[in-house]
């Protein structure tokens, strides 16, 4: 795809170093507790740890047994217990319970807690409160960054989104700054940093402080530019259904740490298979960024080629056969296996997506993005709620409706909210309050319908001062969204949008919508700053910045200037990554995505639910 793609894209830096550093520090920390020990690992750290150190590495450093933290009394017989955890109060309390239970039975053990990526003072407070502070030693494993692929690095902190944007807790700001600092120290100095959003600004400042605290060695930069962006700058993109292969696989099968588990319906056998999805998988690498409608054609072609390659062996003599087996067969078999899996996955996706409900859902989503047939969409959503179909999907559509229509009419808002609570439980009052707070699902204020708004944009820009409420923020967001959609998003009506030869980033949403987040990045890079985008940034609640030069010669025209690191604070989707890859090919540059976590519509909505204890 992208036939206009440039061929002079620079090479990406090697992020294997990040893994090695993390592993070495972990080993160092394990050795701080000499002798045999049992290791307790927090559940959501298991996959990330797995990418860093394997069991034999741990065993070599005298880890005897491994356990998952389950908040239950433990059965370990070891005299030394080591806990590898996130700095969460609940987990620290559980460790205190374990230690206190030992004390009560007169059992003596040594305890060590390794917090990752850092310890919080609140954790110390718990240890102190529970009278355990002298009994345990604590350490920090500065495992900030996990490379998931050549161009994706994750902080694996999904809670960043809710903590920061909903609870207003800034505990992870420093963490984000430290992650950036680590990248700067290893791959910088960065010559230019752009950003937008309140959290981005704070993370940037935290990073600068850390740069000033330490000393900077002069080195050849491998990454030239950095772009920081808050998730709440663009909520539309992560709320949309993903139709690019990798995103679709994430929506349906849930990709965890670049790994997916394909169930029996995909493998056509009775067992599930876990597969790594990254650039090492040659089949996947070729289809991951493709619009789903292209994937069939590609896989069919691939299957034909494979058949031809296998067929070559007919009529071979012994010697030729020997060469074939030793040189080609392994590769072919590998490809055969991957091909079967991806074909199976496509079939499974088709089975789910061709159901009537899904078709209607997608049609409604398109109508919302395009701003047509709004009444029909509302009654579809209402019926969806009445039938008690997926509460996440219902909320997702409500949010999309609210953002694209600049809030719901008060009458609609009240009626849909009431029906939602009746279908899924009154407890969701809290969920609605959360969504309102973030500006995701709000009531339209009198006189601020979309049409009125569009005519008022200019005036609003002039009248606005700082300190926005969620509502106004949202209102402005939609204005941008609409104007970008008109200006850049939807192609001219006399042309077909050919998804096989995408002409812009809109292909990731079937041509319906250009992801705002990526559009901003493109514009800022093109203009080398925010000049000319003042109107847009003011409408987007600003906090934008562009800073030049850190010790390095920013004018240097080396390859590093075409390596751009984009950091998403609050999560990014695979669709956005695909869009940036497309942009990179178009512009002859490469993007590295650093994100607090990979997100999608259901993760985003689930993070805002509040109907459980």
């Amino acid at each position: 795809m992208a036939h206009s793609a440039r061929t002079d894209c620079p090479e990406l830096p090697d992020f294997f170093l990040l893994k090695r550093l993390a592993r070495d520090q972990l080993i160092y920390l394990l050795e701080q507790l000499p002798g045999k020990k049992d290791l307790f690992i927090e559940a959501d750290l298991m996959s990330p740890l797995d990418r860093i150190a394997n069991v034999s590495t741990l065993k070599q450093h005298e880890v005897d047994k491994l356990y998952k933290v389950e908040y239950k009394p433990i059965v370990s017989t070891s005299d030394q217990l080591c806990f590898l955890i996130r700095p969460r109060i609940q987990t620290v309390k559980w460790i205190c319970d374990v230690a206190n239970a030992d004390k009560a039975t007169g059992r003596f053990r040594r305890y060590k807690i390794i917090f990752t990526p850092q310890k919080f003072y609140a954790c110390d407070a718990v240890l102190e409160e529970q009278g355990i502070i002298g009994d345990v030693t604590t350490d920090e494993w500065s495992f900030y960054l996990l490379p998931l692929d050549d161009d994706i690095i994750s902080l694996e902190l999904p809670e960043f989104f809710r903590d920061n944007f909903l609870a207003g807790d800034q505990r992870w700001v420093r963490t984000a700054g430290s992650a950036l600092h680590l990248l700067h120290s290893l791959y910088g100095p960065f010559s230019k940093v752009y950003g937008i959003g309140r959290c981005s600004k704070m993370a940037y400042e935290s990073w600068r402080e850390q740069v000033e605290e330490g000393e900077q060695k002069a080195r050849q930069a491998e990454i030239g530019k950095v772009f920081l962006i808050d998730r709440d700058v663009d909520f539309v993109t992560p709320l949309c259904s993903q139709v690019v292969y990798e995103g679709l696989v994430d929506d349906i099968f849930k990709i965890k740490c670049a790994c997916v588990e394909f169930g029996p319906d995909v493998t056509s056998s009775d067992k599930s298979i876990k597969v790594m999805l990254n650039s090492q998988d040659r089949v996947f690498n070729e289809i991951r960024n493709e619009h789903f409608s292209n994937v069939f054609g590609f896989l069919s072609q691939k299957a034909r080629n494979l058949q031809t390659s296998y067929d070559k062996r007919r009529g071979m003599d012994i010697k030729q056969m020997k060469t074939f087996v030793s040189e080609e067969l392994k590769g072919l078999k590998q490809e055969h296996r991957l091909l079967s899996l991806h074909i199976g996955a496509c079939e499974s996706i088709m089975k789910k997506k061709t159901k009537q409900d899904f078709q209607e859902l997608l049609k409604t989503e398109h109508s919302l993005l395009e701003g047509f047939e709004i009444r029909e969409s509302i009654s579809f959503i209402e019926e969806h709620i009445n039938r008690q179909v997926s509460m996440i999907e219902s909320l997702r559509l409500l949010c999309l409706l609210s953002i694209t229509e600049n809030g719901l009419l008060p009458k609609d808002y009240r009626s849909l909210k009431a029906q939602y609570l009746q279908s899924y439980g009154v407890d969701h009052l809290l969920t609605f309050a959360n969504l309102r707070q973030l500006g995701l699902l709000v009531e339209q204020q009198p006189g601020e319908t979309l049409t009125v708004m569009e005519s008022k944009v200019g005036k609003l820009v002039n009248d606005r001062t700082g300190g926005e409420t969620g509502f106004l923020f949202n209102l402005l967001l939609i204005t941008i969204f609409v104007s970008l959609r008109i200006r850049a998003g939807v192609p001219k009506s006399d042309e077909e949008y050919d998804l096989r030869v995408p002409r812009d980033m809109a292909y990731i949403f079937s041509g319906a919508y250009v992801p705002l987040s990526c559009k901003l990045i493109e514009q800022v890079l093109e203009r080398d700053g925010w000049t000319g985008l003042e109107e847009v940034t003011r409408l987007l609640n600003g906090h934008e910045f562009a800073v030049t030069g850190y010790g390095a010669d920013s004018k240097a025209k080396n390859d590093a200037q075409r390596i751009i690191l984009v950091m998403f604070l609050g999560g990014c989707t695979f669709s956005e990554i695909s869009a940036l890859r497309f942009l990179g090919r178009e512009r002859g540059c490469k993007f590295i995505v650093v994100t607090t976590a990979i997100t999608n519509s259901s993760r985003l909505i689930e993070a805002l639910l509040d109907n459980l204890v």
Partner: protein
Amino acid sequence: MMKNKADEEDYWNSSKFKAFTFDDEDDEFSRLKESKRAVNSIRPLVDEDDDEEEVEKVSWSGEPVGSKTPLLFNTYCAVIGWRDYVSDWSPEETVQRMQQGKAVSLEKFRSLQDKLLLLDYAVSAHDGNVITAPLWDLFVFPEVLFRELTDRQTALRHFIHYLTESKDQRLLLELLRYLPLSTPGLPLLQYKEHLGIADENKRRDFLKSCLSLPFSPEDSVHVEDHYTLLERQIIIEATDGHAERGGKQEIFQKFPRKASILNMPLITTLYYCCFYHYTESEGTYSSPLNIRQTFKLSEKQFFVTALAARAKLKAWPDVDALFTSRNWLGFTRKKSPLSFQRVVDVLHKNSAPTQVLQDYVALVDDAELRITLAQKHKCHDIVINTYRDLKDRQQLLGYRAKMARGSAEERKINELLNNSQIRWKN
């Protein structure tokens, strides 16, 4: 976006990109199926056993163990900052050192002023970790902390989040009671407490106590409904549990209850009552009509739920009755607040037989949609009649080919095709 209808249609007719709909008629999908067969039919040359090795092992299979790299590691330590000593620092320096994870002593900050200075520096440094830490030192009298927090929104939000995370309900409630009632979201935070109450009677009493909280008018209706619903569920649960154990009521024997109705949403409760208590008079708590009235449910909500429940029981006469209304001439006709397409969908999901389905398929207005549904559900009469009405001889011919030889359907089609009264359009 106030486009009028004509504009919209105009737009759709000339739409430049086709909304992607995962259409399974897609040629390429059928090609894909072929490919799958092809791929699966390729026989491996070597035993499958050694394949196991190639399968990515994702559990605990990191890179091979390598030697340690002291040089890199030292750089790393320098980057992340290793601890140094305690000394006499100003509040500002203390905050900086705390951010760096260096040892500090908070003991010397004894005066309230000093403590607040520490807090304010922490807030301006945007470090949530450090913001929470000095809060502890202000803790001797919670009221003092509460008072100071009311003017410090950022610190307040950190503190509330901290208390929520540490599940310190007592202090959280104390704080909430201290804060001015105008604090946004306050009543909801209190209402949230009910989620932690397991005993249904205690939960109901708690909800009752929430009724006096200053919710918005709209939300106070919802909270009142929540209370009323739980109160009702407790009664229904007790009565039905008793009836089920007594073994006298056939419905509970035939369809044992799968779960308790306590704490279920209203619509689920209505479904339950339509399932077990459909014919009860309006006077009882468990009567569907009573629920509909009490909670002011719309016709559509009631209809969808009753339809699903009665269809589940295969009570087709009840299903039929839901649609029946008499007009002023006394004729009965079928009316539905739901599209008949959706009705067919609901009935089909509850495995309604073709005889039942066809009555409703026939009521779908749009001819094309009607044909699609009729074909899907094998309602041959409807397909045939619709083609007849459309005077579409070609389609009828095509459809005849799909019918079994000598079947009633084939005969019917033949009769139609031979009927000289019909003016076929093709």
